[in-house]
């Protein structure tokens, strides 16, 4: 079953048909979501009543378009804010941890490395509830002691940001470590020999070398945060991010305005995905 081995044409035909079928299966749900954003009907289902842009631009109920839906627009804003902070935190901590694991030697390094991988094998919903339990306990304890309620420790955006960061940082650490591993340390030594301080050698030589990995990790962190559901579900308060708002709407059954949001999300994430794939390709060449 490799190109150089002769194969029964019938079997080969069936095989290719199977692969084609697989790609139809991959594309089908996304295509229907996109298509029904333009259906002139109150529900995202058949029959097809003709083409409309109402689900994007119409300003009145019951056909309220996306760009006039304040709750959805607001939750998009919240998601962007959360994703921004998660990205900043994850790339910063990811870079510092990458340096720690690649450059330093210290006792319990392997234990710490394994612990750092843990968030990948803990279900997101458990990360969420454990952080919720601890922060509430701390907040209750402080409140009993001093009478002061620490608002950020109650379900809300701070906890959502911390909860998402807790596992996204693992991914950014792995991505940035992988590139740091390939760095030629003699370049830094040359800078030191030429009179650079340790800090300026890292800043002018190593960090620019790491930049593509940092941007790549940033894009992944941003998308993972924007799309996260499980951890966010347990930690969000009254200001719900987009995924939570959409989930509530989906359970109730909604107008095709959700298709319009989904289409925008698909376009935005494909652009980010293509940027990141292209960057990876450049790195390899």
């Amino acid at each position, binding site marked *: *079953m*490799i190109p*150089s*081995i002769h194969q029964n044409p019938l079997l080969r035909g069936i095989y290719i048909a*199977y*692969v084609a079928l697989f*790609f139809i*299966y*991959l594309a089908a*749900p*996304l*295509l*229907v*979501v996109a298509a029904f954003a333009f259906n002139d009907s109150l529900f995202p*289902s*058949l029959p097809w009543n003709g083409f409309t842009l109402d689900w994007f631009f119409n300003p009145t109920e019951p056909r309220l378009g996306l760009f006039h839906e304040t709750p959805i627009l607001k939750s998009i804003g919240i998601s962007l804010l959360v994703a921004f902070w998660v990205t900043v935190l994850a790339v910063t901590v990811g870079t*510092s*941890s990458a*340096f*720690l694991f690649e450059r*330093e030697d*210290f006792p319990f390094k392997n234990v*710490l490395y*394994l612990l*750092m*991988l843990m*968030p*990948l*094998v*803990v*279900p*997101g*919903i*458990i*990360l969420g*509830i*454990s952080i*919720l*339990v*601890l922060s509430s*306990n701390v907040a209750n304890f402080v409140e009993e002691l001093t009478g002061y309620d620490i608002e950020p420790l109650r379900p809300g955006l701070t906890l959502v940001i911390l909860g998402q*960061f*807790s596992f996204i*940082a693992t*991914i950014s650490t*792995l991505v940035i*470590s*992988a590139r740091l591993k390939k760095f030629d340390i003699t370049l830094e030594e040359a800078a030191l020999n030429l009179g650079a301080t*340790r800090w300026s050698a890292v800043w002018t030589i190593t960090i620019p070398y790491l930049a593509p990995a940092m941007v790549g990790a940033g894009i992944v962190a941003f998308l993972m945060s924007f*799309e996260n*559901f*499980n951890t966010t*579900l347990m930690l969000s308060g009254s200001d719900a991010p987009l*995924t939570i708002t959409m*989930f509530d709407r*989906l359970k109730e059954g909604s107008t095709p305005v959700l298709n319009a949001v*989904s289409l925008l*999300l698909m376009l935005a994430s494909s652009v*980010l*995905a293509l940027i990141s794939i292209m960057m990876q390709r450049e790195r390899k060449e």
Partner: protein
Amino acid sequence: MKKRLGFYLLLAPLLLWLFGLIIVPHIDMFFLSLQEKLGPGDYQTSLANYAAFFNEPLYWNTFARTAIMSILATMITLLIAFPVSYYIAKLAQGRIRAVLFTLCLLPFWVSELVRTFGWMILLRETGVLSHLLQWTGLAGQPVEMLYNDATIMVGLVYTSMLFMVVPLVTTLDSLDNAHVEAGYDLGGNGWSVLREIVIPHAMPGIVSGSIVVFMLCLGNYLTPILLGGKSSLWFTEQIYDQFITRFNWEQGSAFGFLLLILSSAIVWTGLRLTGQNLSSTMGDGGER
């Protein structure tokens, strides 16, 4: 001296992250799960919350059901993904290969919520498939395909596909074609070459893909709830229910801990059976 300061500056964020957001929260959750509520503000340490799990058939049935369906979903995902991954890694050439691989990745940059929404539109009574069946004459009236176990399975398999295809393509890619040819030269047929050369070589990819897929299925909330409806009986739903609806955090923590034990046990067994470790399986993720 200066270098030591730098070392502690690198160590501090990592320790804050791992202890503040992972280790201490889990320990705290474990202690909370050992608290039995006797009355308002009155607690005692006991295993009552765990006993409740074993005494209430609904709880452990849901638990077992979630585990079995997750294992099933992992196996189906592997069976569907393997031929496709093999095609991409070994049979497709040059540009087509890159395009196919990218096409595999793209849907998974889109939110799981959107993908599940797509399946709802396809499968609901007024949906695309139901209309298609009526139009072709295979069904006489609208068919409701949402809210049953098969639908949950379709959604789980779809959502998991990427995490199986990527490690499989990566390991199959490193298989030398000469080994396959040698297998045929020595008198093997397609089946025996697959069983004795291709699958053993792909084992690391099969294991890491299966572990990730299993974990994601076990911890999934969105797909079973939206596609399975009220009858989905998924264990994460029980956890959510205890935390948010009933406000019984002690019971919810015990459930959370049981789910964590199950998922860790399966990950550990999977790694043990194939003689791999977590660092090599997960750590490579960054190099993809």
